[in-house]
Each structure stands twice: as structure tokens, then as C-alpha cells.
């Protein structure tokens, strides 16, 4: 494939700015697709040029496959970078790129499907001998009782047609499992018109650990793991690399499982394999694979010294990876705090509007990925993340102290942000110790109510 000369960036916000940075370094021109709301944004100013693709609402702009393709063709781009979110894992865009001789900077449509559909992905994990949460389909009360004794308790009985937390029953002991099964079936029939159910082990104490994969289709490498257990309602808030307090054997097994899964599906691009670490049983299970650049990729870049976007572009061009696994040396520790424009004292309600002054210090081991400058407008049409503050240090303690220092002196006023919450987390003993589970942030917020957190951006 020929070298890419001009990339259409089908995204916005900090990731658009991030992709432009690498393109500049590579001498690649950029065309940024912008909605009306983003016309005057930092990305539009930094790109070689921008084209307005539609109104502010993303369904009328950033999510329109045809318009994105037309914009790329009309501006003579050879490739499209989809960023994360929006159309980044959209098969139709990948397929349309193919039909129009545009390079999609990501995996092909078949691989997007292989990892995007939960049931397909599960089957691939089974075939690749990657551990999944123990469980299975059951169709009689007797089967349910038998499987339950294999899985252990607590477990969940889930409706096949359910999802998003609906159609689930928690079972804590074997007594009465048959009647719980019958109840689950009749509820599922009533709610979804589909009485099929399956059972799954319930992990009550788990950590979210994910592996960065880099593959040209032949050479499949990992760039270490990240820990993203500090979450609020499944939204990641703080990420770090490497995962702290993870036994060496488990870390190696997780990395190996991620490579095995990627190899099994013939994955070719940058990707992330996510796992749930079961802290009580010292086991881990495959969750899903994300076929895109992730929000938290900078922590991996910080400890590896690699430019993952450059690698992603090179793979899309068809260049073979020249690295071997031993060339990837991970050094030190890195944190990322996601700064959101939200009012943490009002149930984390988004807080759009015009920002006042914005200032981040220049410091050793600091990186700030943002599209926000003083006076910028934060649109209510998009997600509330306005900056990612990333620190690196030779040790975890040093990286953590740098993050505390930066968040205590940076300036970001005019809108409410979650910086006060970050500062509480960074000073919390459990977080300092490392290895918290996904219940951690919810419990912290019960202990320290958000409306008592004050400070910059509060």
C-alpha cells in the first residue's frame, strides 16, 4: 500500500488534536471533519484544513458514514482516522472505506464484527482457550442446579434477550435455585418475550485490567497492561500502567491470553483486550476486545516511549512491524486523570459552557492532552471530557506525587470540573496502596460525599 499523504480525521476534541500531533510529526496532512459546534475549536486551527460536515448534534455530523466518506473523497484524503467513540468501531465505515479505496486506520470490517458482537467474541475466546466468566446456558431447573454447583456462588441468572442490567437475578446459595430459575424464566418471558436464560459467576470484587495489542497481522506484540478499575458507573476516571499489585504470574498469563486472542482472530491494527480480574479467586476472565485507539493510551505511551498513533498509521499503510517483543521495554509508572466538565456535587451532571482561564504547568513527566484553551466553549452536544492529565515517574510514588502537584496548581475555571474528586482519590490511602477494585470509587464517594470536595474547579 502507498504511504498515506493526507488523513481525514473523523472525530473531535482531544483525540483529534492528538492525531494531528502525530500526523504533523510524520509529515502527513490532516483534514478535520468538524460539526458546526467545533468549527472554531483548537483541532480546526491545528489541522491543515477543516471541513464542516453538519450541525452540532453528532447523529447529524460525526455519525454520518456517507458524509464522512464524501468529505474524505472531496478533499483527496487517502485515509480516515476514526479516533475513539463515534464511528471508530463501525463496520459500515470500514467497509465504505474499502469500496472507495480509502485506507481505514483500524482493523478491517470482518475483524470489527468479530470483536464487536459479544456472542461472536465469546466464541472466539473459547476457541482461543482464553478464560471466560464461568457459566453457560441452562434450560431446566435441574441443569441450573447442576451448573450452579460448578460455577459457585454468588451467580447471576441472566435473560438471553436482556442487557444493560435488565433481566438479571442474583443467586447467593444453592437452596431454592430451582425456583429462582423458574422465576427468572417467567420474568424473561414476560419482559422480553424470550424465556431463554443463562447463568454466570458473579464477580463481586474485580479489577479492570486491559492489554495493549499491536499487530501487523503477522507479528503480534503487547505493550503491557493498564489498570482502569477506578470507575464510576462503568466510566473510567483514573487509569494507570502498569497495573499495581498484580502477581507476576497473573500479569504474564493475562498478557499471554491477550496475545492468544488477537492471534486467533488474525487481528491487524492497534487494539485492546479487556479482562476482569476476580480478586477473591485469583482468576481472570476475558471481557471484550476494543478495535480502536483507547482514551487511556497515553499511559502506555508514557511507560513504553512509543507513539501508538504512529504505529497504528504505519500498520494501516501496510508496513510490517520491525519490532520484536523484547524491543518493547516498559519503564516507570504512569497515571492518567480524566478531567470532565461536570458538577460532582450535583450527581456529576455535565457542566457545559464557556471556560475562563486554562493553564497547565510545564513540568517533568507531564503530558496534557486537551482541546480546551482559555475562553473555549464546551458544547453540551458531546461528552464532558475536556482534558487528560498524564504523569510519568520512575516509580509509582513519583508519578502519583507529580499528578497531585499538577492538579493542585493548574487553572481551569469558568466551568465545574471533577478535579476536586481526583485530588481526593490521589490522597486516599487505598488508592495510594494500589490495586483497588471496581467498587472502590463508589465506596469512596459514600465515605467522602462529593459535595464536600472543594478546590480548583469545584
Amino acid at each position: 500500500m502507498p504511504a498515506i499523504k493526507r488523513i481525514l480525521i473523523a472525530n473531535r476534541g482531544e483525540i483529534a488534536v492528538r492525531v494531528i500531533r502525530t500526523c504533523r510529526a510524520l509529515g502527513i496532512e490532516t483534514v478535520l471533519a468538524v460539526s458546526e459546534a467545533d468549527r472554531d475549536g483548537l483541532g480546526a486551527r491545528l489541522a491543515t484544513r477543516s471541513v464542516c460536515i453538519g450541525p452540532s448534534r453528532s447523529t447529524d455530523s460525526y455519525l454520518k458514514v456517507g458524509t464522512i466518506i464524501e468529505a474524505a473523497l472531496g478533499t483527496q484524503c487517502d485515509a480516515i482516522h476514526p479516533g475513539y467513540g463515534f464511528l471508530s468501531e463501525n463496520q459500515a465505515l470500514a467497509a465504505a472505506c474499502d469500496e472507495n479505496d480509502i485506507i481505514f486506520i483500524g482493523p478491517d470490517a470482518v475483524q470489527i464484527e468479530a470483536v464487536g458482537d459479544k456472542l461472536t467474541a465469546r466464541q472466539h475466546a473459547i476457541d482461543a482457550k482464553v478464560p471466560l466468566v464461568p457459566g453457560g446456558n441452562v434450560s431446566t431447573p435441574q441443569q441450573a442446579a447442576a451448573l450452579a454447583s460448578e460455577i459457585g456462588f454468588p451467580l447471576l441468572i441472566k435473560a438471553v434477550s436482556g442487557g444493560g442490567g435488565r433481566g438479571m437475578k442474583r443467586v447467593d446459595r444453592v437452596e431454592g435455585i430451582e425456583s429462582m430459575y423458574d422465576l427468572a424464566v417467567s420474568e424473561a418471558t414476560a419482559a422480553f418475550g424470550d424465556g431463554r436464560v443463562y447463568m454466570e459467576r458473579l464477580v463481586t470484587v474485580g479489577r479492570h485490567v486491559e492489554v495493549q495489542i499491536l499487530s501487523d497481522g503477522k507479528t503480534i506484540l503487547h505493550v503491557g497492561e493498564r489498570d482502569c478499575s477506578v470507575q464510576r458507573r462503568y466510566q473510567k476516571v483514573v487509569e494507570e500502567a502498569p497495573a499495581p499489585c498484580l502477581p507476576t504470574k497473573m500479569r504474564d498469563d493475562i498478557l499471554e491470553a491477550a496475545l492468544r486472542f488477537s492471534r486467533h482472530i488474525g487481528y491487524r491494527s492497534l487494539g485492546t483486550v479487556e479482562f476482569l480480574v476476580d480478586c477473591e479467586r485469583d482468576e481472570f476472565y476475558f471481557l471484550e476486545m476494543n478495535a480502536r485507539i483507547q482514551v487511556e493510551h497515553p499511559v502506555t505511551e508514557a511507560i513504553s516511549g512509543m507513539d501508538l498513533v504512529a504505529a497504528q498509521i504505519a500498520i494501516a499503510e501496510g508496513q510490517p512491524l520491525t519490532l520484536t517483543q523484547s524491543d518493547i521495554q516498559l519503564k516507570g509508572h504512569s497515571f492518567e486523570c480524566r478531567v470532565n466538565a461536570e458538577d460532582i456535587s450535583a450527581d456529576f451532571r455535565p457542566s457545559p459552557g464557556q471556560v475562563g482561564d486554562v493553564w497547565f504547568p510545564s513540568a517533568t513527566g507531564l503530558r496534557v492532552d486537551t482541546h480546551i484553551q482559555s475562553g473555549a466553549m464546551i458544547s453540551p452536544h458531546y461528552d464532558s471530557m475536556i482534558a487528560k492529565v498524564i504523569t510519568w515517574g520512575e516509580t509509582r510514588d513519583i508519578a502519583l506525587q507529580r499528578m497531585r502537584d499538577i492538579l493542585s496548581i493548574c487553572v481551569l475555571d469558568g466551568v465545574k470540573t471533577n478535579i476536586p474528586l481526583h485530588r481526593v482519590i490521589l490522597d486516599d490511602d487505598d488508592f495510594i496502596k494500589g490495586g483497588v477494585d471496581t467498587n472502590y470509587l463508589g465506596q469512596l464517594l459514600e465515605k467522602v460525599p462529593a459535595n464536600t470536595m472543594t478546590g480548583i474547579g469545584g
Partner: protein
Amino acid sequence: MSDKLTHSDIEDIMALVEGSSFDQLSLEMGDLKLSLRRSGAGAPVQGSPRPTVATPVPTAPMVTSEQSATAPAASPAQGLTDVPSQMLGTFYHASKPGADPFVSVGTVISPDTVIGIIEVMKLMTSVEAGVSGIVAEITAPDGELVEHGQVLIRVRQD
């Protein structure tokens, strides 16, 4: 005046502007912003000057441009009305290569006059003028990409 502008306050202000030698007035009171502009300011006056009143919604400043971006809008410098593109796509002046263009400079148009075609992924959408008047300028070249909101033609309204 109190800190709330009433309708009659605005009428008073408009009358003051009309009687003055100024073309434009911006007023800010608390979180209310009022801007008045004489239509066709800077161009030869046609008919009676009517200041346009824009009062942005005070609580949500970023939504104000939403409706206006693709609606025909006066371009004050020449006293012409811009007809912007409703979508991004390739703009064609004629129904097929070599055919006569839908409109040219001097064509008299009404709001439902087709002024061109926009192609998005092989799908052709005809573009209506949305205003009546005489085509004064065709600003978007034939067969090239137009952005959402880009001015396609300029119209001298009756």
C-alpha cells in the same frame, strides 16, 4: 430602565438606532445580549431600513447558531442574501455534465427553484433556493466539495 428589557424598551432602542447615523449597536446587560444591525448596512439603502433583532437565549449561549447556520442569511456587505448548503457533498450546477445549469447570474428565482444538486455517496439531493429574488453570484464551483453551511449562491432579494 430596570435590569429587564421589555419589548417597548427594544422598540425605543430600535427607534434611536434608526434615527442615528450608526449602523450597528451592541448592548449587554447582565446575561442578556442585544445586537441590532441595519439590514444592508454599508450598501445603498433599498426601501426602508429594518434593524434585525437578535436576543440570544441567556442560559445556553452555545445553541444560538444552531438554526441559523444553514438558513438563508443576509450578507450585509453587498445587501445580498446568502444561500448556504444544508449538507456536505459535491455540488453540481447542472443535472448532468454538459446540460444547462439550473440557474445563472440574473435568473429570477422563487423559494422552490432548484439551484443545484448535492451528491453524497451517489445519492443526489436537489437544492432549493429557499428565497426569492435574482441570482447575483454563484459562489460554489461546479463539481467540487461544499461544506455544511458553505454559501452556494448569493441572491438579491426583491
